[in-house]
């Protein structure tokens, strides 16, 4: 194998000899440089391979042929090899990326460029601290050189700031080194570690100076104004190097020198990390400039890695896995984002939407950002999981809270940025993408995917079968060029196969009622709701992979047996649904609030799982039942995650707009299927935590109130909506509150109601949304007062909506009444009278919007521009009528679902429940015979109809007189239309209940975050001298802190 010393020799030799070619053709010099760097990369890669494949010993290279400490020695071990490979690969890619810059600037810059990486290599390898100082100087000088690659004014001034700052830092390091030499008698790092520096008077100060210099090299918040300016002003290619290679190297220095400080230094490092992580991510929220945001995010990530390093003791043997998975994700993703930012070449993130019509770039951006956020399936997800879980295991919940909080801040700005990227843009300027600029980003995204797989396998948490969905999604992504029709068929086939395997082959044999039911809702429902996809024209790029991911995420929820699998599936489903919603035309803002709420909820759930793991030491879902001491905490934390998903009162504000703005066939999916994931989660949670242990028995009571109030407010708000989709969306909030209430009653009947009702809700909510979507598909408007009289044009849709609302309103004889009836009994038996009364009231309020829905769309006079409309497409109608059939069957014979669920529940709530005599179901209170009612009703209706028919001969049909407007107003005539603001008196009487105070308070919180951040970041005055002062202050403060000064 080629010795590591050749890395230096070759780089230097090439750099020096480039001088010969200064005037010669620049391609030659670039070729030389590139070849040299490639060879260097090859050397490091070869060593890495050696360490990975066979048991390669760590080797020492002595310069000048003398043993250390008498001469400088380099070390090549596994960690060195990893870092060297990372650095050199990045160097190679950057060289490709900066090809045109370097070629334009000539040989000087090429030397500087390759010597930067030479310097970093030596810094990683060397074991002599003064030598480390020298080559650190080399790398910082070269960096200063590269900053002014483009001689922009602000680049120059920021380069000057950087010079001052790094000059001070290196002087501090130098003083520390020389003092350490005096007290320790050696410059050889191993000797320094062994020596008793810390205990000599003054020696500890020397160590302090050395380590603080290293910390400052990591650009800790707040002593990092200079670094941010560099990130912002240098060409993004350089930014990629700084955050990818230089930061990585500095981390390695810390890792190498930390032993000198000993364990006493772990905590201070950790605190520094916390300040950086929280501080810079918090300030990042206010940023508008793309490169500066990336800078903030890099500093935050470095802070996180410092935290991890300081917690190495607690992480134990997981330390390497956590550290490297997070480091590598950050290194690849951040570099990739910088490169993309260089391609787009816009400072304001608002202008990033010029990549709107470049799907490739959008995918790359998405991959990188989601990797940074640690969402599945990207490597950092596993890292974060192991990190949190191991911290939980050793009970460090402060750290967990901090880490998740910081990650949340980061999520805020990265996701908002992603949203802006997808904004539809007016300016039609075309973006030219050079191959050599996009190539590195593509490579790094491939590397990310590769590492996702590897980390997943290494973590040992994932079996191969979890990758099937991703494989299918990737396949669909590869086949994206196909027309919608074929892809839709493929998607349906996939889901059908999935449901066949899961439901038919697994659950039905196991007779696992709960999983059968939800498998039915999730997967069969998916098949139905995919049908409307046939109506879409064109390609629908990227739609189907996401759909597959979402539904496989849902299936994963049912499948999950451990908290990890559950969380994985949960995050995946959330992510996919977010990306589906954001596809909507105006869904950017609302999908942002959706993902923010979901992530906050997911983090809570995460902490909850961690807490459970801390107590029980097991990640099995059933182990939740054994949580006793922290039961309340675990319960609340996990429940919040689910409450967000079912949009309970307080965390509901994301729902209406998200449903409204999503594509018309996505809305039924999320509204009737996705929300059920929250219900399923609650059921799992309550089964294990409310039933099996009594420790947390009082929480269901609270949940019950929340459910009742959400039911009331949801329906109240639904009344006043003029947007038809929004109306149905708000009603979802109400119904979900209703289900939550049923579950939290913790009684047989309550659960029977809730579970059967989630089936029913799936049926009619899908029905309503499909019908509405089908109508919108024809009328091209969502405003309900712009419709009317469509019954003559779309009779079939009318039937769907009629059935839908009768079921929703719970009128006999349809199955909705079953819910109401069981509910009365449950409430009275349980004794929750007032909550019950509220829920009934909201149930009656539901009539108002039901009627509004059906009347304003179908009845009254028809609008002139709708006279020619046809019935909606058959692809919308097929699923509707399947659903109607389902509703009818259950209505005539509800026993078929109620009895098995009852049997299943009687495992948990023995004794109570419905007693079946024939078709009559009875409780201790009342009785009810759906079949008989249906027959009586049908008979009566038929008789009366016949009577009318006989009595009313020669009926002549006349048109309605078009007197719907009370008086025309020139502007907004619809305001005088009777269907506009239909329930004005109701609003006058009870409107206060619908006041948007929750939305306002959330917005207030969000705004005040911005305001605070805006004030804080003022101390980055932009004056290099102030930044220098920050550094000195930081050193002094840190010193005082270490020595208990304060």
């Amino acid at each position: 194998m080629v010795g590591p010393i050749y890395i230096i020799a070759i780089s230097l030799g090439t750099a020096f000899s480039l001088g010969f070619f200064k005037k010669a053709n620049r391609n030659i010099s670039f070729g030389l440089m590139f070849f040299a760097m490639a060879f260097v990369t090859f050397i490091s890669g070869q060593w890495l391979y050696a360490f990975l494949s066979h048991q390669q010993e760590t080797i020492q290279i002595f310069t000048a042929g003398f043993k250390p400490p008498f001469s400088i020695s380099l070390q090549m071990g596994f960690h060195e090899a990893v870092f060297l490979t990372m650095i050199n690969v990045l160097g190679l890619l950057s060289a490709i990326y900066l090809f045109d810059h370097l070629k334009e600037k000539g040989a000087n810059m090429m030397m500087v460029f390759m010597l930067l990486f030479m310097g970093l290599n030596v810094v990683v390898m060397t074991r002599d601290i003064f030598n480390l100082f020298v080559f650190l100087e080399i790398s910082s000088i070269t960096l200063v050189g590269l900053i002014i690659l483009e001689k922009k004014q602000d680049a120059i001034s920021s380069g000057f700031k950087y010079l001052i700052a790094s000059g001070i830092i290196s002087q501090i390091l130098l003083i520390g080194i020389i003092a350490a030499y005096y007290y320790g008698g050696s410059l050889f790092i191993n000797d320094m570690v062994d020596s008793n520096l810390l205990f000599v008077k003054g020696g500890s100060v020397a160590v302090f100076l050395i380590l603080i210099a290293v910390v400052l090299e990591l650009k800790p918040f707040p002593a990092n104004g200079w670094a941010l300016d560099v990130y912002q002003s240098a060409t993004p290619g350089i930014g990629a190097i700084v955050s990818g290679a230089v930061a990585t190297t500095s981390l390695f220095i810390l890792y190498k020198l930390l032993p000198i400080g000993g364990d006493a230094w772990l905590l201070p490092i950790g605190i520094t990390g916390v300040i950086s992580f929280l501080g810079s991510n918090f300030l990042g929220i206010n940023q508008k400039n793309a490169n500066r945001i990336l800078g903030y995010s890099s500093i935050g990530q470095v802070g996180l890695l410092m935290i991890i390093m300081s917690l190495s003791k607690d992480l134990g043997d997981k330390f390497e896995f956590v550290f490297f998975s997070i480091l590598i994700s950050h290194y690849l993703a951040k570099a990739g984002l910088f490169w993309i930012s260089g391609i787009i070449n816009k400072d304001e993130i608002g202008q990033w939407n010029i990549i709107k019509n470049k799907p490739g770039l959008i995918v790359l951006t998405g991959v990188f950002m989601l990797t940074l956020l640690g969402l599945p399936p990207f490597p950092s997800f596993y890292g974060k999981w192991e990190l949190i879980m191991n911290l939980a295991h050793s009970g460090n919940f402060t750290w967990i809270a901090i880490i998740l909080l910081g990650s949340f801040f980061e999520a805020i700005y990265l996701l908002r940025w992603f949203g802006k990227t997808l904004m539809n843009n007016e300016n039609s300027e075309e973006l030219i993408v050079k191959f050599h600029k996009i190539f590195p980003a593509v490579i790094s995204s491939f590397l990310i995917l590769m590492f996702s797989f590897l980390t997943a396998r290494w973590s040992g948490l994932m079996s191969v079968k979890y990758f099937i969905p991703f494989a299918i999604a990737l396949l669909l992504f590869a086949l994206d060029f196909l027309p919608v029709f074929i892809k839709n068929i493929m998607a349906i086939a996939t889901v059908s196969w999935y449901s066949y395997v899961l439901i038919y082959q697994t659950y039905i044999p196991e007779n696992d009622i709960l999983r059968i039911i939800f498998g039915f809702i999730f997967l069969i429902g998916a098949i139905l709701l995919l049908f409307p996809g046939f109506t879409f024209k064109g390609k629908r790029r990227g739609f189907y992979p996401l759909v597959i991911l979402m539904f496989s995420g849902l299936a994963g929820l049912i499948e999950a047996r451990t908290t990890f699998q559950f969380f994985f599936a949960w995050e995946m489903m959330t992510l996919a649904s977010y990306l589906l919603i954001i596809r909507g035309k105006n869904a950017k803002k609302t999908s942002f609030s959706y993902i923010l709420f979901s992530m906050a909820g997911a983090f809570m759930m995460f902490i909850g799982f961690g807490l459970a793991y801390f107590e029980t030491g097991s990640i099995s879902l059933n182990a939740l039942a054994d949580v006793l001491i922290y039961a309340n905490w675990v319960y609340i934390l996990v429940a919040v995650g689910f409450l967000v998903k079912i949009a309970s009162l307080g965390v509901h504000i994301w729902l209406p707009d998200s449903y409204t703005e999503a594509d018309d066939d996505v809305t039924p999916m999320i509204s009737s299927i996705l929300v059920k994931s929250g219900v399923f989660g609650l059921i799992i949670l309550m089964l294990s935590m409310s039933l099996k242990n009594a420790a947390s028995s009082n929480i269901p009571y609270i949940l019950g109130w929340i459910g009742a109030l959400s039911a009331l407010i949801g329906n109240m708000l639904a009344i006043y909506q003029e947007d038809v989709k929004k109306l149905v969306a708000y009603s979802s909030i109400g119904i979900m509150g209703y289900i939550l209430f049923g579950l939290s009653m913790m009684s047989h009947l309550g659960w029977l109601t809730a579970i059967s009702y989630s089936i029913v809700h799936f049926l009619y909510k899908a029905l309503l949304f499909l019908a509405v979507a089908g109508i919108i598909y024809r009328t091209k408007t969502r405003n309900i007062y712009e419709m009317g009289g469509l019954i003559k044009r779309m009779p079939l849709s009318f039937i769907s909506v009629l059935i839908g609302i009768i079921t929703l309103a719970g009128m006999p004889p349809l199955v909705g009444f079953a819910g109401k009836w069981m509910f009365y009994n449950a409430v009275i038996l349980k004794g929750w009278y007032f909550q019950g009364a509220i829920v009934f009231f909201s149930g009656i309020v539901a009539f108002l919007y039901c009627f509004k829905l059906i009347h304003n769309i179908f009845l009254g006079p028809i609008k002139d521009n709708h006279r020619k409309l046809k019935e909606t497409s058959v692809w919308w109608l097929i699923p509707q009528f399947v659903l109607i059939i389902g509703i009818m069957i259950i209505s005539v014979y509800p026993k078929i679902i109620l009895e098995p669920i009852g049997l299943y529940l009687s495992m948990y709530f023995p004794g109570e429940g419905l007693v079946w005599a024939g078709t009559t179901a009875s409780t201790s209170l009342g009785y009810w015979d759906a079949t008989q009612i249906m027959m009586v009703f049908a008979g009566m209706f038929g008789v009366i109809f016949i009577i009318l028919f006989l009595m009313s001969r020669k009926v002549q049909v006349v048109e309605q007189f078009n007197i719907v407007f009370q008086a025309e107003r020139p502007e907004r005539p619809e305001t005088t239309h009777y269907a506009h603001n239909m329930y004005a008196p109701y609003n006058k009487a009870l409107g206060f209940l619908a006041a948007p105070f929750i939305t306002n308070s959330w917005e207030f919180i969000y705004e005040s975050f911005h305001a605070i951040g805006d004030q804080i970041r003022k101390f980055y005055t932009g004056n290099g001298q102030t930044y220098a002062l920050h550094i000195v202050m930081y050193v002094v403060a840190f010193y005082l802190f270490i020595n208990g000064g304060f």
Partner: protein
Amino acid sequence: MMEKLNIQNIGLTVGILVILVGLWGLLTQKNLIKIVIGFALFDTGTHILMVSIGYIKYRTAPILDEAVDIRNAAKLVVDPIPQALVLTAIVIGLGITALMLSYVLKMYQNKKSLEINNYKDLKW
């Protein structure tokens, strides 16, 4: 008192003072050139510290010519390592100072101003 006042301690004191003076200049002066000078002073102070650390009383430079006999050289010469280090440090300082000056020159050419407060284009 007198024995405290040996060359080493004098060297250290002077070094520290020079460092402080340099920092003061670096942090308070508004003129770019003066800031660079402040940095150079800081640098020099460090070098003084380094040299005086290696000094040993009544000893000579570590050059083994006829003045020093090789057999018990170890008893006669001062520590060569800090001198070697300071040599390197000086050159590095020289390089950085040169860079700083060229930056100042360029900034001056662009804005015709040496006032550091005029270079706050990037902030927050």
